[in-house]
């Protein structure tokens, strides 16, 4: 036990979450398969994946709500299976379903949380409650979905967690509530240096908030990298030809080194590239087919996500 703590303390500075070869099964079906993942301390990690990919199962395993069938889960330096209480004392968790008690008011929720938390900062909770403008005298059952999410986040902050694990925190929120929620998440909480791990299938919100991204599909992690690094190394090259390019030219473009995928719409060709996009652009412009326009644009997360999903589908 002592050894785990020491190891944990040493690695705490660098990694908030470390999963090694994680395997979780529902009966015979594998929900998470050989998943290895490291979330650096202080990161805002967006965990992306389609419905049923294994995001929630991975999160539940991190909190000790579900035991892994294989591999190891280390959260804030503590083993999530053997030291689950230590993990939960330092982690604030918000589930994908409304998990608050409908028959309780905000002060009653606070009293309950205070009684089961190792530390409790009521001033912090009050600050967030007034920031979100939540009514303290009404029962939570009468709150809207957005208000419940805001209250859940406020309550998380009461125990001053080092790590926030949010499972689809903005699911079901309208765009205004989602924007407000994410703004507070970044401006208030991430600014305090806390690590935020949140799952989502809304790509735009992950792109707006996260600095790290992991994509999971069918229980397998298919990419895990810094978002900026992913964007730097992968770009979109938009080519507009003067005349419709012949099929042979398109085939040649597809075969160029660094081209990951190609989409054509009439005279416009869109190349998803990897590596030195400038030299690739020069190579293409030096060819005999006249180009009206060449644009190098940053890849957005949606492109990336779709690319990885497509790759996986083709690979299967």
């Amino acid at each position, binding site marked *: 036990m002592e050894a785990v703590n020491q190891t944990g303390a040493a690695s705490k500075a660098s990694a908030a979450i470390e999963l090694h070869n994680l395997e979780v099964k529902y009966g015979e079906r594998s929900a998470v398969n050989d998943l290895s993942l490291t979330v650096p301390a202080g990161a805002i990690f967006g965990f992306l994946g389609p419905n049923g990919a294994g995001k929630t199962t991975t999160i*539940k395993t991190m*909190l000790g*709500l579900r035991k892994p069938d294989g591999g190891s889960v280390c959260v804030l330096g503590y083993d999530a299976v053997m030291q689950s209480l230590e993990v939960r*004392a330092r982690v604030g*968790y918000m*589930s994908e379903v409304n998990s*608050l008690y409908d028959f309780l008011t905000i002060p009653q929720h606070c009293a309950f949380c205070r009684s*089961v938390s190792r530390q409790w900062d009521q001033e912090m909770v009050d600050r967030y409650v007034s920031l979100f403008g939540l009514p303290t005298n009404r029962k939570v059952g009468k709150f809207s979905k957005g208000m419940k999410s805001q209250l859940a986040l406020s309550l998380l902050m009461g125990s001053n967690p080092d790590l926030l694990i949010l499972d689809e925190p903005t699911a079901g929120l309208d765009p205004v509530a989602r924007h407000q929620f994410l703004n507070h998440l970044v401006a208030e909480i991430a600014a305090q240096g806390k690590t935020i791990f949140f799952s989502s299938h809304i790509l735009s919100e992950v792109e707006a908030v996260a600095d790290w991204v992991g994509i999971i599909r069918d229980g397998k992690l298919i990419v895990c990298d810094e978002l900026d690094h992913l964007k730097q190394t992968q770009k979109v090259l938009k080519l507009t030809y003067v005349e419709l390019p012949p099929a042979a030219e398109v085939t040649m473009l597809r075969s160029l080194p660094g081209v990951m995928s190609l989409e054509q719409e009439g005279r416009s060709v869109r190349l998803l590239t990897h590596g030195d996009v400038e030299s690739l652009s020069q190579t293409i412009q030096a060819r005999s087919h006249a180009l009206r326009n060449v644009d190098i644009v940053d890849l957005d997360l949606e492109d990336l996500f779709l690319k990885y999903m497509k790759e996986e589908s083709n690979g299967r």
Partner: protein
Amino acid sequence: MVVKEFIEARSQLQGQIQQLTGSYDGYVWSQWFSKNGPDILAILAAVLGASLIASEVNKGTIFFLLSKPVSRDRVLLTKYLVSVLILLGVSLLSGVAILVASAMVGHPQNVGGVLISTILLWLGMLFVLGLALLFSVLFHDVLRPLIFSLLFTLLLSIPGLISNATLNAWNLTFYWSSFAAYQGTMFPLKALLICLVAALVPVLLAIPLFRKQAY
């Protein structure tokens, strides 16, 4: 053979009931501690026990609860103890009501007998509560734990329909509704111990099961 035995037992039982209801004490005991009390309290115990965990799972609040730094044993036992106290309160209240009402109509009852019968009944109902709790851990909806715990309790009371000493030894209802204890003619130590053990068994089974349950 079985039919003959059943008819004999039934007429014996009717004779006993007539004898009991002939007196005020017997009437009160048969109406509350033997019949209505166990029925009402068993339903209350099953409702309380069935919703202890299954309701949390059903509503999603289990994630809020289990994400806090408290052990599952503490969660389960705290919730169980609250229900135990509710049942104790209701049982004691009914005992007090019997004492007060009987005194008011000029038939004061043996306080010790009423108290010990109330405790026996409460312990018996803790078995139903524990059973419902066990099913509540196993199933993620409230209806199945409620139905299964009541069915199981009903099955256990079947031997009581046949007035047979051997069968009665395996009949839990026989222990939680003792007329001799109500009259104060004997201290039902064996009945108390049996009801206590019966109450503990399902809870002791539910604890490790809840510890292992994945949500």
